[in-house]
């Protein structure tokens, strides 16, 4: 079965199940991230990886591997207009740092985002501030700053499309993306 070709309703149910699973995983630490977070990263990766004869996951050290290993912790979330790293963020960034230390040749970009309820230019600066906060924390954990770059998308690239608190909470984020 492939999720990509699934009937929309089936896909929705699956998505809901995965979201629930995600919520359970995070229930101990997700303070301000919405309860149904993180979005499940695994399905697309699994679908797009060609199935060889042997049991396989993503290539170790690849971005796909990073996403799969992080189980949602490739993204950290922020309160409105804030950019501080709280306990949940610190746990996620620690997991990211551990992975990155296993692959010392890997570089990563941290993408900072804001929700739609801000003015465009301020949100660009705010996204940069959030990405930099994440980067600084990773560096404080011992990562070489030269391996990390930041980019802000302001409010231009939301992941949740609603105009409501739950969507905005998902969009106030910094996402670490490793460079293959």
């Amino acid at each position, binding site marked *: 079965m492939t999720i990509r070709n699934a009937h929309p309703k089936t896909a929705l149910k699956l998505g809901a199940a995965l979201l629930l699973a995600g919520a359970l995983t995070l229930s101990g630490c997700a303070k301000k991230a919405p309860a149904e977070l993180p979005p499940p990263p695994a399905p697309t990766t699994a679908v797009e990886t060609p199935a060889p004869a042997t049991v396989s996951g993503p290539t170790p050290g690849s971005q796909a591997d990073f996403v799969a290993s992080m189980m949602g912790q490739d993204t950290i979330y922020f309160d409105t207009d804030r950019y501080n790293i709280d306990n949940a963020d610190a746990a996620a960034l620690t997991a990211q740092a551990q992975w990155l230390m296993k692959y010392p040749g890997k570089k990563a970009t941290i993408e900072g985002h804001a929700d*739609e309820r801000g003015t*465009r230019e301020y949100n660009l*600066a705010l996204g*940069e*501030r959030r990405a*930099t906060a994440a980067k600084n924390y990773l560096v404080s954990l011992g990562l070489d700053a030269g391996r990390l770059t930041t980019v802000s*998308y302001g409010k231009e690239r*939301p992941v949740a499309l609603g*105009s409501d608190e739950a969507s905005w909470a998902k969009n106030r984020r910094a996402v670490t993306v490793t460079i293959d």
Partner: protein
Amino acid sequence: MSFRRLPLFVLLLSSAAVAQPQMSPQPVVTATSPAAEQDEGGLTGSVSDETPWQDLGIAIPTFATNADVATQTSAGSTAGLGRALADVITSDLKNNGLFKPTGPDALPQPSFGQIVAPDFGVWSGRGAEMLVHGYVRANGDGSLTVGCYLYDVALRQQLVKGGWQVPPSDWRRTAHKCADLVYSRLSGESPFFDSKIAYIAETGPKDRRMKRLAIMDSDGANHRYITTGQAIALTPRYAPDYRSLLYLSYFNGYPRIYVYDLETGKQRLITQSTNPTFAPRWSPDGKWILYSMAIGGNTDIYKISAAGGGEPQRLTNTPGINIGGSFSPDGSKIVFESDRSGGQQIYVMNADGSDQKRISFFGGRAATPEWSPRGDQIAFTHIAGNFRIAVISPSGSNLRYLTDSWQDEAPTWSPNGRIVQFFRTEKGSGRTGIWQVDLTGRNERKLPTPVDASDPAWGPVRP
């Protein structure tokens, strides 16, 4: 490609112009006679009119021509052009709260000879207070000459006239020039119709929106895309001389401010830095560029010579986000946005960065300040629940809201400081459109654009 303002003696139809020394900008209302209301068409529709009572009725019939010949314009022959010109003028004069123009569709067509000798009886009978007449002439070299005359119907006098010789591609500009002539003569305000707008054209779904730099005339005509949409483009600003645009592009993957040369189609970074740059602005004389740059997550405002090559001067130096900036018309001060006190608020400083003072103290957050070209007001986005366009005095007093919607942001001014332009985002869908509102806040309209639109920025009136 010349756009020539004709000296008066070149005017085909000269007339004994006795200009009225003084016209009241808000003319006294005249009662419409019952007889006039039974007349067909024309200016007699005041019964169902919802606009304020002081609107001035202006008749704008088709421009006449000495000979109906083919032209190289999109409007066809000189006769077709005569109608199109009157349509463009009518459309310009609508929606600004001052006039009630009636276009050529509902009006009789004057003869060529009547352009300088109107049949005032016809127009007063229709209740017209003002009358615009004009003519089109195709010249031997392919260029066009357009004349424009404004008459006071009750006084039976010409108030002002103008004439322009243009290449066919610029025919709409003569209509805007005529509308500017009428507008400034009757309102006492500076002209603004013959100007252009840069903005961001938006298409596609909310999470993968394509954003392209685009330009158009002040009425939405002559629309042109500048960038392809492969890189996100945001926040354009027209250079005061219209030769270039400042804007933000994700060209090469990171947000940076570029100067885009409209003549060569080439662009350059305003500053060689690996740090992201945002929020570009011109000084009124075009000699300086303001931009905001983030270093280590901290954003400050810088000033650099527009000619390129100079060292940037840092104007702000506080923890937090200092961003944007808009010069006062005399170039001596800059109004900008900063969250140094917590949320976004408005500050004013001298153009060298000294004497930074907060001016917004009315609750909520205050963002994207833009100084009026007349100097007397600052337009901004007020965030308190909804996002509304508002104006304050340069001292921060006299807060007045111009709009009330879910999310209106990024106001910029018309060249004459009478109209504020901004973009409105629809809740949920995220769809955007450019809107204009006059300073009373009563006259709001959506600007026609081929696709969704944001970040409008007006250039100056063209010479």
